[in-house]
């Protein structure tokens, strides 16, 4: 399939490489040209704008930071809509607010572009391994047509519903993972302050009812004090902010997510924004009299 890819960061780069590996013809453009280099070396086509990507492909994918970036590359000057032929499909795989996804989809549809929101879970390791979980909102036919692309990047692909529904599922995912990281960090800090070996605690808990992927993967990184991203704390904070704003709009109480959001604020304030979100352990240590043994 002829597919364009916009946004070649920590997640986008391995996702685009997996599309190439699966035999698709990939066109790329990125705001920072140097981020395109690994893809060009792997055989991707070099484009000068998002519009050119759209002209040279039937489907474009964007993987960028936030809603204004998605707006810019799709509807802005020299954006996807400027280059797309009628019937073009745009898949936004960024994490943005459900309402923003709906609004962008509606405006793209006016310009003849079918929009899907397809945010992912699984982080950089999932992106590299091609095992992402993909949550899709938008037209069912369009979703079926791009299934081979999703299969090149992910393992579990679920169409949740109409436009914006993928982002709602992602928001749910962020509630559970955000709170989960905080819970694992609190447990490991508590173990350590109690004079107990956190590694043994993790090992024991993995066999029981507290088992989770977060305890397994994030817990391990906390024990190794490996705070390299991964998923940067400021990105996680951004996602939780989206969730809290939606909950505010809907009149839905999220007390535990709200507490977690404050811990993310604390991380940003302490200059940990560029660390992985597992660095929340360091924040809790500061709130508990320093680093434990």
């Amino acid at each position, binding site marked *: 399939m002829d597919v364009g890819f916009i946004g070649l960061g920590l997640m986008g780069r391995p996702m685009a490489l997996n599309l190439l590996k699966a035999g698709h013809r990939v066109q790329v453009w990125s705001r920072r040209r140097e981020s395109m280099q690994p893809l060009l070396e792997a055989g991707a086509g070099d484009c000068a704008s998002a519009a050119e990507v759209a002209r040279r492909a039937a489907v474009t994918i964007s993987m960028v930071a936030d809603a204004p970036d998605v707006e810019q590359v799709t509807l802005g000057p020299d954006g996807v809509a400027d280059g797309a032929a009628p019937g073009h499909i745009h898949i936004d795989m960024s994490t943005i607010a459900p309402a923003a996804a709906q609004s962008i989809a509606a405006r793209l549809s006016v310009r003849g572009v079918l929009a899907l929101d397809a945010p992912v879970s699984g982080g950089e390791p999932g992106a590299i391994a091609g095992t992402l979980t993909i949550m899709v909102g938008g037209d069912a036919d369009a979703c079926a047509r791009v299934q081979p692309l999703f299969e090149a990047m992910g393992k579990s692909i679920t169409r949740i519903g109409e436009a914006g529904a993928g982002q709602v599922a992602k928001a749910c995912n962020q509630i559970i993972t955000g709170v989960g990281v905080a819970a694992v960090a609190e447990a490991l800090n508590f173990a350590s302050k109690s004079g107990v070996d956190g590694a043994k605690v993790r090992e024991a808990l993995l066999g029981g009812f507290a088992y989770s992927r977060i305890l397994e993967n994030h817990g391990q990184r906390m024990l190794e004090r490996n705070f390299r991203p991964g998923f940067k704390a400021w990105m996680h904070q951004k996602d939780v902010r989206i969730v809290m704003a939606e909950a505010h709009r809907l009149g839905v109480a999220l007390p535990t997510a709200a*507490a977690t959001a404050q811990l993310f604020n604390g991380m940003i304030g302490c200059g940990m924004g560029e660390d992985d979100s597992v660095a929340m352990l360091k924040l809790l240590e500061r709130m508990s009299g320093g680093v434990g043994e």
Partner: protein
Amino acid sequence: MKIGFIGLGVMGGPMVGHLRAAGHDLAVWARRPESAAALVAEGVLLCATPAELAARSEVVITIVTASADVEALAFGAQGLAEGFAPGAVHVDMSTIAPATARVLAERYAERGIGWVDAPVSGGGQGARDATLAIMAGAEAATLARVRPLLGVLGKRIVHIGPPGAGQVAKACNQMIMVSAIQACAEAFRLAGAHGVDKAAVLRALAGGSAGSRVLEVMGAKMVERDFAAGVEARLHHKDFAILMEEAARLGAPLPVAAQVWQQLDALMGAGWGRDDTASLLRVLEG
């Protein structure tokens, strides 16, 4: 002084009365002209647009709901900025985001127009009694020019700092006040769960270290189960969205405020947004 006024609600209505009583020449603009009918009947000039109001005023005072409302009034089509002569001052007494106040102040400054953010605390009662606490963000010289007007509306006027600083103080005010309302609601929920006389608890606590204005006013409303708005809860809910978003942007953890925000979300979900914030008690009663 020739003063324009926009926002004739629970707060703005009595403020207009005080300014007129002090001898100022007032004109108004209203999104719904019928809301100004009583004033027009008394001979107050009703302008057709904010621009027209600004053109005949030295100072325009606004007190409306949201950041977007103030932006539209100031720089929307036929907004105040189109009418103001250089040297005029826009005094905004609404509760809006500090960032919005800063941007508006900068845009006005480019045109030689002054800006004061002057949000208030004290509610409808404070507006009627002219005892509002006023928190001002402005250049000192600009504030000096409108201070006599603010003195007609409130008792305590504090210059916090440059434009936006008044709104920061107001955010702090909202955080303390609504968190205190939540604490009162929890206290009366606990007293109710034990089946003890809430009115007696209120009387006892008012004299001790837990005594506060919030306990006195909101506690009484909770004891009497009087949930009719004073200040509508939806406005506090709106204020919390602003201050929590700013806290996230600045990397400031506000754990208690975050929980109060969620209780307000639950209050809104229950459909009590137009009732008093004392309804936080009802949220706890499930």
